[in-house]
């Protein structure tokens, strides 16, 4: 089992903030918009360094999405920033008509995704956003796993022409990917080679998958782990190659199992390679108040749930 070293806990939203700062210094077409959450989204440095290219829109997300579509029409590369809930469900029709259907080059950057925003509770958490966004034709959907990856993804989506939904979180989590890795949209990352089971994870669940894998390895199970940071377009090749070798798969995400990564994987498997799959995710529920760790544990979004899912799916493998 390959060793992964935590370089120190950091929040993914700070990776976004640093990436945006770098973009601001290197690309004069980049503009940023925020709906009264500049500090939460870590957009302060960009705003301070580029006051003419930073648009504080107030608590008015619908207008923010329209402004972004207009700025893109004028040739700018707008990055919008607010919580994932207010970046998607609240403004779905604005994104659908003015951005997705209109092919606008807008980067919708969403922090505080999933339950791990914690104590604010279900009104501010969202477990449905991947589903909402992946259903929009032409929308690219990315969920990064740590600080380094969020920073490199933020920089890379700027080079990509088209609407992107970039999802990240609030809490400080293990930062373990190589800061020098270039982010490749739509290309899954093979973290550990194994033969017994495939674990595909996204976002905060990637580190949990690594922890689960270490425990599995101690018990004689050798899992293959894939970091699926891009949910759409899905890297079908890496998943199919792996599952044909291992014969079973577990998907893991901080999202409702309805509409998330797991469902995309299931669609792929049923049409190309029907191997058994287990889902780690929330089961058609809203979140609630609590600490991020308490919530991850209560809703089964941790290494233990992944471990159990592996045990279950391996029992269903063809003999």
């Amino acid at each position: 089992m390959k060793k992964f070293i935590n370089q120190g806990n950091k929040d993914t939203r700070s990776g976004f903030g640093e990436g945006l700062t770098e973009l601001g210094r290197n690309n004069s077409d980049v503009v940023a918009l925020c709906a009264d959450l500049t500090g939460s989204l870590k957009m302060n440095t960009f705003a301070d360094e580029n006051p003419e290219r930073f648009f504080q829109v107030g608590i008015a997300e619908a207008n923010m999405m329209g402004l972004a579509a207009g700025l893109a029409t004028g040739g700018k590369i707008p990055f919008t920033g607010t919580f994932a809930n207010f970046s998607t469900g609240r403004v779905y029709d604005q994104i659908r008509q003015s951005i997705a259907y209109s092919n606008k080059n807008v980067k919708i950057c969403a922090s505080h995704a999933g339950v791990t925003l914690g104590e604010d509770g279900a009104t501010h958490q969202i477990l449905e956003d991947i589903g909402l966004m992946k259903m929009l034709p032409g929308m690219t959907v990315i969920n990064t796993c740590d600080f380094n990856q969020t920073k490199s993804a933020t920089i890379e989506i700027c080079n990509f022409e088209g609407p992107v939904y970039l999802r990240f979180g609030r809490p400080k989590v293990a930062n373990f990917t190589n800061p020098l890795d270039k982010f490749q949209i739509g290309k899954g990352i093979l973290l550990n080679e194994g033969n017994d089971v495939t674990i595909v994870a996204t976002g905060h669940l990637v580190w949990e998958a690594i922890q689960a894998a270490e425990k599995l390895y101690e018990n004689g199970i050798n899992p293959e782990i894939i970091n699926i940071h891009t949910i759409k377009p899905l890297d079908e090749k890496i998943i199919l190659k792996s599952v044909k070798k291992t014969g079973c798969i577990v998907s893991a995400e901080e999202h409702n199992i309805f509409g998330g990564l797991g469902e995309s994987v299931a669609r792929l498997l049923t049409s190309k390679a029907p191997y058994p799959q287990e889902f780690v995710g929330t089961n058609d529920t809203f979140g609630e108040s609590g600490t991020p760790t308490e919530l991850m544990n209560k809703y089964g979004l941790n290494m233990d749930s992944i471990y159990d899912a592996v045990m279950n799916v391996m029992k269903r493998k063809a003999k």
Partner: protein
Amino acid sequence: MSRNLDNLVIQTRRDILRMVHAVNSGHPGGSLGCVEFFVTLYNKIMKHDHDNFSNDIFILSNGHISPVYYSTLARAGYFDIKELSTFRKINSRLQGHPTNHDNLPGVNISSGSLGQGLSVGIGVALSKKLNNDNSLVYVLTGDGELQEGQNWEAFMYASANNVDNIIVTVDFNGQQIDGSTEDVLDIGNLKLKLESFNWKVLEIENGNSLEDVYKTLNEAKDNSMKGKPVVILMKTIMGNGVDFMMHSHKWHGVAPNDEQLKEALNQNPETLGDY
């Protein structure tokens, strides 16, 4: 105003009527009400060219009046007038509501779901400011459409941020699908509301007069770049130019039948050649 523009107005009405009749669907009422505005804007006011964003830009928010938009664009040379015959048909670039999705020249954004165009127009205006480009953004919205809350976010934003390179026109025909705006949801004193939002408000008493529209759009241009966004409340008559369609919301989204079309076209004899 020139005779040519009068002729273009009549021909545009014919295009609208024939387009909606051909597919027995579409929105003639609001389209006919805005003919004089479109003809003036595209032929006398805007410096426009689809491929050059440093020119003036027009954003249509009330996308359902697509027939007048398509006719105006085609007759301004953006695409062949023959393409008007594909309106609302399968495989057409002329969708029921306008979209740039299929690269129709002259259309920069999709609209139809109401209340979004004002925000988009302000966004374009912001990009022009960043580019130090002195051209203007023109937006047309319906009046019923102002019931959508996003507009008020946008009105608030533009004045608070001195977005003064935008001229918004409200098609103030007082009608919406279910009846008069007053009956459905009264938008109240729009002039006072917008003045209190710190916009420069101009009015056109007769939005179906080429002279009045021209005069006020020019006045709006003179008032632009002076620290405040400009809005024009343009009173129009829904269904203008066809006597049995005028002054009623009933022709908002209904196409004329064969006989009605004949009667309507008789009232607007061919001037510049049908598509």
